[in-house]
């Protein structure tokens, strides 16, 4: 029999239950914090904070960092919370991954070299981080929070995120291999 406890320890839920849950969470985040769920500026802030630790004022004077402000704020804590929430769910459902460097779809096409996967992930991360700030948001800020507010910027972004992603994924897995 399904109890509340057994539901919480299930490894996966219906994507619709998860999506509706995220939708309800967006109501609460607007109502209580007055803010949409978003994540990518936090990576820019963190990058800036790291530069600030090394170069101090030089980082603080950069126009972009003046604009986004290098401080731990609501969204920064939200991203930290995502790490924690995923960790909690993974642990209680026995799905925490230990020692996994290479995802299986990647391995089936490119082998199980951890170094290759980490280097490609780093290259992908650079492009993603740059693109997220260029577009002014990511799959959560534009893709979910912006589209649900019917923002024109977010609908265009979400569509082009997937156009770029679908074409690139097909090039990687169906043309290069």
């Amino acid at each position: 029999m399904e109890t509340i406890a057994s539901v919480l320890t299930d490894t996966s839920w219906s994507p619709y239950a998860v999506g509706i849950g995220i939708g309800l969470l967006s109501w609460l985040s607007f109502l209580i914090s007055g803010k949409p769920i978003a994540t990518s500026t936090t990576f820019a802030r963190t990058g800036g904070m790291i530069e600030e630790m090394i170069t101090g004022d030089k980082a603080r004077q950069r126009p972009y960092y003046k604009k986004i402000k290098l401080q731990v704020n609501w969204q920064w804590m939200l991203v930290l919370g995502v790490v924690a929430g995923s960790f909690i769910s993974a642990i209680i459902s026995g799905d925490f991954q230990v020692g996994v460097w290479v995802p299986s779809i990647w391995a089936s096409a490119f082998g199980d070299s951890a170094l290759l996967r980490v280097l490609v992930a780093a290259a992908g991360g650079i492009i993603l981080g740059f693109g997220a700030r260029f577009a002014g948001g990511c799959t959560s800020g534009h893709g979910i929070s912006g589209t649900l507010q019917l923002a024109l910027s977010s609908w265009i972004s979400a569509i082009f995120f997937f156009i770029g992603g679908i074409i690139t994924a097909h090039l990687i897995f169906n043309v290069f291999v």
Partner: protein
Amino acid sequence: METENMEVKKEDIPDRRPLLLGLGFGILFGFLLHKGGATQYNVIVGQLLLTDFTVLKIMLSAVATGMIGIYFMKSLGWIELSLKSGSVGMNVIGALIFGVGFAVLGYCPGTIAGAIGNGYLDAMTGGLVGILFGTWIFALMYPKLKDGLLKMGDFGDITLPRLLKVNDWVVVVPVVALIVLLLFWIESAGF
């Protein structure tokens, strides 16, 4: 004099509640992302390869649910929208660049935080360092991009109802209906 001092003191003590609320929302968001499988490279890349529609199902049901509540609360005056302004340069060129990175990395900024919590080491190392580095490159280039590509085809923070000059619900109702139809179609197609 005394009241001035009081005010300064009040400002000196930052309000920690927003930070705790942010953490709480993040924990719930991360919990849901893991339960949905969106913290896995295989699920995200499967979506981009059009073999696994989990990500689209999560996003579309979140958007439909969210939209109804947000516009309902907006019509009651409980909340205000928080819109991102945009331009063709930002939301076409920037989003295409993001899409390329999305496929190469196999995570996005939110799901990589979830993937780190889930224990995936490619996310925790190369992926995270790469994203931080990519945003830093953007910060270096920002002064040059700001009045160039980022401004190209600027349209501000407009919503679809304002663009079409109609009542909010004239857009919300058909969009929610289309999302529901699309989800039924995805299911009946066997994805």
